[in-house]
């Protein structure tokens, strides 16, 4: 299946490691954006070490004081419009954690 998971909090969701999908996306929204922008003790968030395609919502980045330049290079910045396309064109099923 083509599965996208919305990560909306700044901690590692327990279920992430168990989910399997042929195409697997992780979409960072709300306080999930910190995974893409902040390092703790110099370490990148473990969420970014999953085997997945990563996206972050630019509106939620900017609300919190970040710009595109603050985002880890693994992560693609999208806006709400891009998110609609992801939902209809790239993935089929969704989990909001």
């Amino acid at each position, binding site marked *: 299946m083509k599965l996208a998971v*919305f990560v*909306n909090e700044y901690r590692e969701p327990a279920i992430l490691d168990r989910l399997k999908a042929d195409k697997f996306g992780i979409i960072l*929204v*709300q306080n999930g954006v910190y995974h893409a922008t902040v390092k703790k003790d110099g370490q990148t968030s473990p969420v970014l070490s999953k085997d997945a395609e990563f996206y972050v919502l630019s*509106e939620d980045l900017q609300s919190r004081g970040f710009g595109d330049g603050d985002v880890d290079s693994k992560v693609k910045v999208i806006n*709400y*419009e891009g*998110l*609609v*396309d992801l*939902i*209809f064109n790239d993935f*089929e099923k*969704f989990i*909001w*954690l």
Partner: protein
Amino acid sequence: MGKLTIGCFSSLVGSMTLDFAVKLAEAAVKKGHEVDLWLSGNGVMLGKKGQSKFRDYSYLAGTVEELLKTGKFRITNCEACAKARGIDKEDTMDGFGIHSMDWYLASAFDADRVLHIGGE
């Protein structure tokens, strides 16, 4: 063009999740998709009449009214969730549907995509 059903169970103001759901609906409608938005749990507060627009609180009533005008957007409150909170039909904004929970499942039935936001 497709149909997106969004279920949102988080409350107005206290959580920006409802802001997310409304903004996503807006973007989808702009691209020509149809959107059903189902509000359950504290999400039903979005339908409360007479909300005030203050800068320190999120305010979505205006956007919802604009979306309803497009004809591509339906928004429905869970009847029991609303009544439990003292929000009955007279207390609900014009244009909102009020249905029991089966409405959401029926909306999901013929949706191309379902985004269920059940978080806390």
